[in-house]
């Protein structure tokens, strides 16, 4: 299986990138004179936030492919992308709160559109599993989940577009604000963070995909050997592995 074959080279590349990213972020990039050590969260938090959105958009693309092709593997790909997006989204919220506490003196600011938007997106995607869970027929579950993945995948960038139009109070926009470009090794550390966490996302996506598809194939083989009744569908679970 091509995804399984890609796993080893991906793991090696990801390990190298993560090591280089950590070394550059911790040892090479200079400590900011005004913000101090907390500025180093710039090499962690924004990358997770960017890749969260990338993961949700990938979920929408696979969901769209599933709706057009009806291949169960595309549904599984969308499921894994959304699942990892949820994990990355939670990490973004936690690292963002830590940064907020250090920079603004508050874990959370309800008046800050970027934070609230991210929370809205997190809450929306938090309904993905309960939604799947509520549909019993596997094919229907997969199709409805793909509809959700496409709609929510469109929603996330639109939501951020709307937020960009509103007045930004506190949250910095490191990619947009004039004069906020990170200089030299700091810029390198930021770029590496996106690259390394992006590679981590792709590797984890492959790992989970291979694990789940192997389990599905194993169950199918078990059914052929031991009979249909020997391996009943896993009840009350929202993952495609229930098949």
């Amino acid at each position, binding site marked *: 299986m091509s995804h399984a074959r890609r796993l080893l080279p991906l793991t090696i590349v990801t390990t190298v990138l993560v090591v280089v990213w950590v070394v550059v972020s911790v040892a090479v990039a200079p400590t900011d004179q005004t913000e101090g050590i907390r500025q180093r969260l710039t090499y962690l938090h924004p990358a997770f936030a960017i890749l969260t959105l990338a993961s949700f958009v990938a979920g929408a693309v696979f969901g769209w492919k599933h709706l057009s092709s009806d291949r169960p593997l595309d549904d599984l790909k969308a499921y894994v992308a959304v699942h990892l997006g949820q994990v990355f989204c939670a990490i973004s919220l936690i690292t963002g709160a830590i940064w907020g506490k250090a920079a603004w003196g508050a874990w959370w600011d309800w008046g800050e559109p970027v934070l609230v938007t991210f929370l809205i997106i997190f809450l929306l995607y938090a*309904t993905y599993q*309960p939604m799947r869970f509520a549909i019993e027929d596997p094919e229907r579950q997969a199709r409805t989940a793909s509809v959700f993945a496409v709609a929510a995948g469109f929603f996330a960038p639109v939501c951020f577009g709307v937020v960009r139009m*509103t007045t930004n109070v506190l949250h910095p926009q490191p990619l947009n604000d004039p004069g906020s470009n990170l200089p030299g090794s700091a810029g390198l550390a930021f770029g590496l963070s996106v690259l390394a966490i992006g590679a981590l996302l792709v590797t984890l996506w492959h790992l989970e995909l291979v694990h789940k598809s192997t389990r599905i194939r194993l169950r199918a083989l078990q059914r052929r050997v031991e009979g249909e009744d020997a391996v009943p569908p896993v009840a009350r679970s929202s993952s495609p592995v229930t098949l």
Partner: protein
Amino acid sequence: MSARADVRTVLALEWRRERRAPQVLPTMLLFSVGAFVLYRFGLQDGSIDGPLAAGVLLVTTLLAALLGIGRLWTAEQDEGQLDAYRLTPASPAALVLAKALALWTFLLALHAVALPLFAFLLLSSAPGAGELAQVVLVLVLVDLGIAAVGAVVGAIAAAARSRELLVPLLGVPLTIPAIAIASEAIGPLLRADPGVVDGRWWLALALYDLVFLLVGWAVSEGIVED
């Protein structure tokens, strides 16, 4: 039949169903009026204006719309009308668009009654004709956005067991941008000294509507397909 005729037929069917056994409109209307009265008590008989008034009007609209969204695909799922639709040569996109238009027209009908009631019960000062026309235009756009999202959300929820739980769970986050933009647009119009609506809010609302109408079109096969 052309796609336009299909949409018109399904839309007429929705309205005929509503006329024969009124469910969605009376529910939404009673809920809205009840909420306005509740606000009247909750705000201790205080009359409101500006962003607070915009928020009250729009959030009440959204919550009323959720009731309508929950009923939008009921007949298709419970009475097997989706199977009947699949037997016709009409396109899935026509059905989803007709559902969105049906909800849109329900919301417009709701606002025709609820907006004067809102002004009577809660607004501190009645808006002028120019401001009122702009408020109505914003409501037309925000209703279209809610309807476009509602058609997709209603279809997703209808496929599930816990339909009533899923509609607000999915519908509220998806409509927050539309409510936020509309609030920015309506807020200045409902102030005692009315302001001017920034042009970008019109554009943003129109874009939101367009995006979710396109999403509805894009996923219509997945919704209607067996």
